[in-house]
C-alpha cells in the first residue's frame, strides 16, 4: 500500500486514526507492516502490500 493511504484509512471498529509501522518497503509501496489504532490499540496487518482492515472478529486468526 501507499503511505498516502494513511490520510483516509481508520480503525474499522471505532474509526480513530491508525499508526503505521513499516516492516518491509519496496519503492513507494509498503509490502508488510502493522497498523495500530491510536484509540483502542487494535492492530491490523499489512500483508503482501494490502492492509487487512477487516474487523478483528472477522479476520483469519492465522498470524502472518
Amino acid at each position, binding site marked *: *500500500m*501507499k503511505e498516502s*493511504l494513511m*490520510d*483516509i*484509512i*481508520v*480503525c*474499522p*471498529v471505532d*474509526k480513530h486514526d491508525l499508526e503505521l509501522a513499516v516492516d518491509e518497503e519496496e519503492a513507494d509501496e509498503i509490502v508488510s507492516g502493522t497498523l495500530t489504532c491510536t484509540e483502542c490499540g487494535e492492530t*491490523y496487518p499489512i500483508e503482501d*502490500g*494490502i*492492509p*487487512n*482492515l*477487516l*474487523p478483528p472478529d*472477522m*479476520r*483469519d486468526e492465522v498470524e502472518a
Partner: protein
Amino acid sequence: MTASDGDDDTEGDTPAGEAADAHPTTGDARTVGDTYDRIAGHFAKTREYAWPEVESFLEGRRGARALDLGCGNGRHAERLAEHADRVVGLDASRGLLAEARARAAERGFAVDLVHGDAAGLPFADDAFDLAVYVATLHHLAPRERRVASLDELARVLAPEGRAVVSAWSTAHDRFEKNEGFDTSVDWTLPGGETVGRFYHIYDPAEFEADLTASALRVEETFVSSGNCYAVVGGP
C-alpha cells in the same frame, strides 16, 4: 454473455435454488470472503466489462477520491480511475483483491486496495466524492448488516458526494417470487465443482425501504437488467 446482463453476467452461475434453507454462508465478511477466495480466479475472468448503469452514473461526474465498495476484480475501479484522482477498492476476498491488483497492473490504472468489511468501513468520514457499491449489498446478512453498510457508505461520502448502489432483484426473470428472499446461488468452477454463494434477492420496494432506513439520501431508484439501482448522496 453481454455487458448488459446485470448481476447475471451469467457465466459460472447455475440456476438459483430458491429454497430459503439452502444458505451456504451467513453473509458475514469472513464467509463471503472465503467463498470468493475459492472462485476468485475463474470469477474474475468472467467479469470483464463495467456495467452500463455504472458508466451512465459516472458520466459527467468527477471527484478527488472515489471508492469501489466490493471491488471484485476491479472492473469498476478501472472506470472510476477515469473520473477521480485517486481510487480505493475494498473487498472481503483476498483472492479477488489479488485479481484486482493484476488487472490494474495489466491495464495501467491506479487503485489502492484494502481488505475489509462493507458493514464496518475502515475509512474516515467524508473521505469520498464518488462511490460505486454494486452487486455486493446482496451478499450481506442479516438485514441489519445490509442497512449498516448503507449507513457506512453515507458516513464516508463527502456532503456533495454521490454513489450508485445495486443489488440483485426479484425483477430478474430467473426468479419467480415477488418478495425479497434469501437464497444460495451456485458458482460452477471449470472442473464442475460448485460453490454456493449467499444472496438476499431484493424486491424493489424492500430495496427502497432499506435505503430509506439508512442515513443515505436517495436521489433516484430504478430497475435495470434484473437489478435494483439507486443513486444516493451522503447524509
